[in-house]
């Protein structure tokens, strides 16, 4: 068997198992991990197609940043338990999902079968890879000449998204809303808490005084031992 075939079969199996895991496993963390397996498999397939840079970016951005964020959110929100999927959160969601899935599968199969004779097994079917220069040089040239507007506008979009996220996550005005506390200002509240703690401390001390006799005896015994 050729090396390419062996690698392809192995990676395809990993990709398929990973995508099945994303859909079928119950625990969100396992789902996210299956997604990583799929992304990794796709990266290896990219390498097989000669798209080295794309493979590296796939691992660094998708596996290294995006899924990490997914996992972070899952862990911080504490939803890392098996989900109950007995009923749909949105009415008719399941039917719509099945219909969309079947439609996408049908479309891909049609596309694949209708051009079946043109599947050549060549490294790249659309862009001719110029063997003389590495991927990254070719990509950079195209990105900063033909597609420079799209590239810059995408970066502006990302900046807007970051600024928007910061604005949304920070509430306007003061960080602590005084009106949230029913008993006056925060200072009053803290004072009340402090008083309550002091009362509790007094009670504890009283209990301690009642038990003092045996403690005292113990101390004397210790002193005697010394």
């Amino acid at each position: 068997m050729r090396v390419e075939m062996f690698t392809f079969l192995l990676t395809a199996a990993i990709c398929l198992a990973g995508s099945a895991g994303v859909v079928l496993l119950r625990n969100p963390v396992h789902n996210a991990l299956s997604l990583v397996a799929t992304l990794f498999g796709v990266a290896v397939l990219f390498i097989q197609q000669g798209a080295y840079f794309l493979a590296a970016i796939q691992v660094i951005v998708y596996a290294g940043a995006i899924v990490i964020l997914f996992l972070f959110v899952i862990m911080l929100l504490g939803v890392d338990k098996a989900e109950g999927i007995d009923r749909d959160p949105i009415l008719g969601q399941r039917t719509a999902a099945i219909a969309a899935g079947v439609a996408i599968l049908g479309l891909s199969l049609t596309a694949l079968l209708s051009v079946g004779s043109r599947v050549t097994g060549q490294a790249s079917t659309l862009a001719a890879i110029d063997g003389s220069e590495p991927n990254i040089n070719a990509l950079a040239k195209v990105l900063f000449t033909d597609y420079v507007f799209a590239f810059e506008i995408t970066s502006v979009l990302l900046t807007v998204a970051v600024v928007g996220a910061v604005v949304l996550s920070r509430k306007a005005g003061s960080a602590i809303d005084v009106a949230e506390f029913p008993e006056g200002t925060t200072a009053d509240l803290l004072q009340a808490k402090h008083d309550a703690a002091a009362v509790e401390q007094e009670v504890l001390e009283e209990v301690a005084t009642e038990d003092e006799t045996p403690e005292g005896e113990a101390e004397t015994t210790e002193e005697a031992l010394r």
Partner: protein
Amino acid sequence: MTSTLQSHVIAGMLANDPLLSGEVGLTTLLVVLIKVVVAFVGLLLSVILMVWFERKVIADMQNRFGPNRAGPFGLFQTIADGMKLIFKEDLMPERADPFVFKLAPFLSLIPAFLTFAIVPIAGSFNDGLDGVVTILGQQTFMQVADPQIGILLFLAMSSLAVYGIMLAGWASGSKYPLLGSVRATAQMVSYEAALGLALASVLLIAGSLSTNAIVNGQAGFRWNVWMTGLVPFVIFTIAATAELNRPPFDLVEAEQELVGGFHTEYSSFRFAMFFLAEFLNTVTMSAIIVTLFFGGPSGPTFGLTNWVGVYILPFFWFFLKLLVFLCMFVLFRATLPRFRYDQVMDLGWKLLIPASLGWFLLLVAVRVGSDQGWNLVATGLAAVAGLLAGAFLLILSIRASAAKRAAVSLPGEGT
């Protein structure tokens, strides 16, 4: 397929093709196997010695003996510890997630090994040899692989290594490991940005991602540490220390706060794997620093082109440089107190990332200026002025936000 793929491979360096696409001969396979075995064994050996070295140096600094029972000078102490760990009982907490709990140590260990594949450890870079050596009639480099993406593989692997720690903490089903792993993930993700930006300065000078080309560009003491003006090296070293979770950035396993951090619940060989991965990463990171900033195995070969000039001398230079950085990491551990968590985040986000970005822009300005034939002094001054204005605005905004926070903080909370 063969012809297309074969054409990306630089002519005459078939064995450099790390991905073995196209027709692969038996000798090519044999050369790759030899390189893999040498790198694997060498790395394991270096880790065993590194653990011993660190314990011994720290013991000396603390006026103790350190390991001195197993073997001469306690050299076999690490092996003894490893054997002990293998025969210990393997415990798993009741609330652990069994599959992820078993998977996590491997996710830590494997990226640590893979990163070393792109580090050139020998090969002469003088006399126009470009690091090419001939093994079994195959022309190749003294590194396991030299992929096009080169140093990006290091970034990809360091972002995968986060998974090992994150999942170990989560899968333990226990409080302290989870806290430790959340800290570790936040810290590693934050410092990866500074690491990447410092790296970008090196790539600007080298003009290539390939580690072989980066080292080749530094031959003849044109080391990137001064070609990039020292700042990226300092930032890279600090960010690398944080990325490794080594002191003074070892908040991940701060004993006083978190018992043992993410590996609290791990025992036996699974714990050994985390321990191994930590030291593997230290050795690999030192090797990466040497490759990026100190010219890797390049150095004077005194005109020798036989095996002494191609293997022994370059490896000697590489090892010497590596040793300096291993010592540096040990000294960090021995002398520096641990940072507080907010200090770590402040340092990463407010100082290292803006500084590395600013320095990168300065280098770009100078580079563009020299390409366009502008007056370099004027270009440099204009760039510095722009950066200073940016820094001033940044400091101003940080101060303003701190003042705003102080104004609404709770009374009695201190300053």
